[in-house]
């Protein structure tokens, strides 16, 4: 093994940082919070486009392979990777199609290298089968889907938020999924790092769902120095190679995943498989497998790592707005305007869309007299909010609040006044 190969192998085995990170990505505005708390004393100040921030964050989180295919409005992620990833000791391929883009990323990840792909609506549809493969085979992977209008070719250059349900249920079969919607360029960076950390720690694909507006805009950002980027690596097996179970039961529910070539040989198949990864028809093992891949994302620790919701003036809100991505930025202006007029309005902004953050939503939904959901689709996340509102009402023994939708699918953004009108109506 060459010195470079040995170094690369060591990097693949590197354990997750032991001490508490300076930046706690479970917090909203994590970098700013670290500065305000005096934990972070140095930073890189720059301006970035959303897509560039995502690609840069991926490399800084340790991604060393990108497989993709050009598609508006996500192409800058591919282009950034093409410029930089080899210089970081990684590699990339512009594949022959969208399917191959995610397939190559999964192949690289199984090889032991953090990997990602990027796409938009139509390409996201094409990637769905292999996304399901990554769920069942428990492959760490980040899929960036920059949302544009749909269905079909729709509005390639215009913003949409219409892939929310595709992110949740796009691939067939019962499967857990994590989907994250950043709203600022700073958040594009922070949430991409968090997405990789979740993907690696929990051996699961994570979908990053910026809308085209957020991905295409440029904003100033403050990034921590490279050595303070909180990076988590996948669990490495601790036992002897002959005892290695790539799909075994562990305390966390997440089995270790060894890079290829280091003696821990295993089989990875999209068929139902046993703890060694070999195909099985044992109903008990199949049941265990299917339930474990869900349960591993539902532990207390996993929920703390995965769920993330910003509460903006929502603590006493009687009119609760729910919005995410670019629409949440309009909602903030609307809420501020309503507050200035004495209306008790607030915003809940799910940063992690899936799984939905029922715990954070419940108290606000139970208190709210009216809930307004604003999104650039015809009501995809409103369905989830309605479900959560009914659940919260049932638990509180009160009637559920009315859930009103503000929806646009004409390539235009929902403006603050659209939301404000509904708040004060």
């Amino acid at each position, binding site marked *: 093994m060459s010195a470079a190969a040995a170094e690369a192998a060591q990097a693949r085995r590197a354990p997750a940082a032991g001490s508490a990170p300076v930046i706690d990505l479970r917090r909203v505005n994590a970098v700013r919070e670290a500065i*305000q708390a005096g934990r972070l004393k*140095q930073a890189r100040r720059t301006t970035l486009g959303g897509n560039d921030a995502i690609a840069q964050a991926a490399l800084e989180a340790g991604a060393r392979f990108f497989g993709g295919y050009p598609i508006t409005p996500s192409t800058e992620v591919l282009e950034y990777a093409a410029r930089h990833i080899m210089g970081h000791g990684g590699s990339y391929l512009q594949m*022959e199609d969208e399917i191959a883009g995610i397939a*190559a990323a999964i192949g690289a990840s199984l090889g*032991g290298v953090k990997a990602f792909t990027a796409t938009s609506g139509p390409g996201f549809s094409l990637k769905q089968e292999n996304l399901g493969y990554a769920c069942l085979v428990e492959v760490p992977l980040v899929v960036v889907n920059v949302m544009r209008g749909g269905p079909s070719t729709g509005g390639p250059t215009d913003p949409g938020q219409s892939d929310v349900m595709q992110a949740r249920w796009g691939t067939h079969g019962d499967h857990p999924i994590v989907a994250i919607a950043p709203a600022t360029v700073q958040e594009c960076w922070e949430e991409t790092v968090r997405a990789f950390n979740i993907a690696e720690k929990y051996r699961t694909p994570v979908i990053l769902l910026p809308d085209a507006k957020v991905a295409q805009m440029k904003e*100033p950002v403050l990034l921590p120095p490279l050595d303070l980027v909180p990076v988590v690596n996948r669990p490495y097996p601790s036992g002897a190679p002959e005892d290695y179970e790539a799909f075994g039961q562990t305390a966390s529910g997440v089995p270790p995943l060894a890079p*290829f070539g280091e003696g821990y040989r*295993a*089989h990875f198949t999209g068929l139902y498989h046993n703890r060694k990864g070999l195909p099985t028809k044992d109903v008990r093992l199949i049941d265990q497998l299917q339930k474990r891949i869900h349960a591993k994302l539902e532990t207390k620790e996993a929920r703390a790592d995965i769920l993330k919701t910003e509460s903006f003036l929502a603590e006493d809100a009687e009119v609760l707005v729910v919005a995410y991505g670019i629409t949440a930025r309009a909602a903030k202006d609307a809420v501020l305007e309503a507050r200035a007029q004495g209306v008790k309005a607030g915003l809940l902004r799910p940063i992690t869309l899936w799984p939905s953050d029922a715990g954070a939503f419940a108290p606000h939904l139970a208190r709210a007299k009216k809930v307004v959901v604003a999104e650039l689709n015809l009501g995809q996340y409103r369905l989830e909010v309605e479900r959560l509102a009914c659940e919260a009402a049932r638990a509180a023994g009160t009637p559920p609040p009315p859930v009103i939708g503000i929806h646009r699918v004409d390539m235009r953004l929902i403006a603050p006044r659209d939301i404000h009108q509904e708040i004060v109506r």
Partner: protein
Amino acid sequence: MNAPFVCSLEMPDLRRTQMRRNIWCEGCGLGNMQRSIQVALMRQLGRRLGVDYMDPAGVEAIKNNVAMVSGIGCTSRMPGHLDFNTVHTTHGRSLAFASGLKMARPELTVVLAAGDGDIFAIGGNHFIHAARRNLDMTLIVYDNHSYGMTGAQHSPTSPQGEVGASAPYGVFEPSFSLIDLAIGAGAGFVAQGAVTTLQEHQDQLDELIAEGLAHKGFSFINVLGFCHTGWGTRNKRAESFRYRQHIEQQIASVERWREMTAEERARLKPLGVIHRVARPDLQNTPGYADCLARSRKAVEAGREEVEAVSPQPETDLRAKRTSLRFAGSGGQGVISAGEIALAAAVRAGKNGVFMKNYGPEARGGEAYSDVTISDGEIHFPQSDRLDVLVALNQETFDKFRKEVAPDGRILANATAVRETYDDPRVIASPIGELLAREVRPPKRELGINILALALALDYFGLMSREAVTAAVMKSVGKKNPALNQKALATGFAEADRLKGL
């Protein structure tokens, strides 16, 4: 009920001990192919890794070094049986998975086992591009001219006229030559073997796969196989032995085949190494090494500097925002003007958001970018009413004038904007003429964006000259400092003149 294979007793077994039963039918040729893959890997990899495959440590080293990838189908179940790093992927996609794996871990020996339906129908695109790309991988295809696992439907290699489950009255589609396809797509090593009743063909297959593994670059070994329980039962070759004999009647050594007449060639299939061209595999081309070096330089050049930061007072959530639009024809640099305005705002300690505008309206020769700046938070980065419009031509002046706030301002390039409709918000400046006279760019309009930017930001008091100058010189000014300095100076001087009016 393992498939029979010709056993070389002195060879170690590379199979997994936990997989005691396989799904292949008794008599299937896949057992032969699997055995040949084992033999070839031991011979070839033993040599490459410098280990003895008769030594258990040597076997271990070989197993650790091999990654076997497959798609879906009977053949694709093979990796489950072999004790390597094995990936059984989705239908047709094995080459795409393997390509990422090989890019990420070039030191691994990547081997693929696939069926004809998997690799040439649903995975055809990946096959073409894997051959073109020339990653150092070895693909072994078991071509039984049918979909075996789903029950004998016809595949892209099914002979016309024969009967399949989805071709009940005979296959009416033509098949194609995998060999020609592979060569045409750029595969550097193309060989064909067969599973028959004869030991010589088993030995030949061992050798062909070993040669494919030795070849640096994409190598493709097509194995003429059969499915006696599926396709065979529908075409009077329901016994393994009989089907194997049928294949024997269809083959000729490639040397003999090359001497044949066109009719004979059409009837028979060549066996042996059909095509071999030495060229560097993808990761060892000079072009790849060059990209690597240039990317390293880009990363070095792009390193951001670290500066001291400290807790700040909470930002004003409802601070005033100023929205600017730079508009003109494509090529006038209005997009970069917006980007530079954002950079200048950030330098001046302000917050900002830049948005370039895609869309059909931006394609028809018109371009514009929007910048919102503020001393506080900017939530929604789009305004109903522009505070400042910089219009470099008549078309954008006409188009965006109505989006300017009643108390907003419009800086119009009087050289191009002839009609201002007596709009009281307009500040007219002969920007085009100033550029030609003072800046004298080598190319028409080069620097007009910088002149207009300097003029607008200074005249409207949006940012200090220092911030604007620094932002310009750190971006476009790097490439052409003299011209941009002149454009800035001209813009600032014009601002002074207008302020004096």
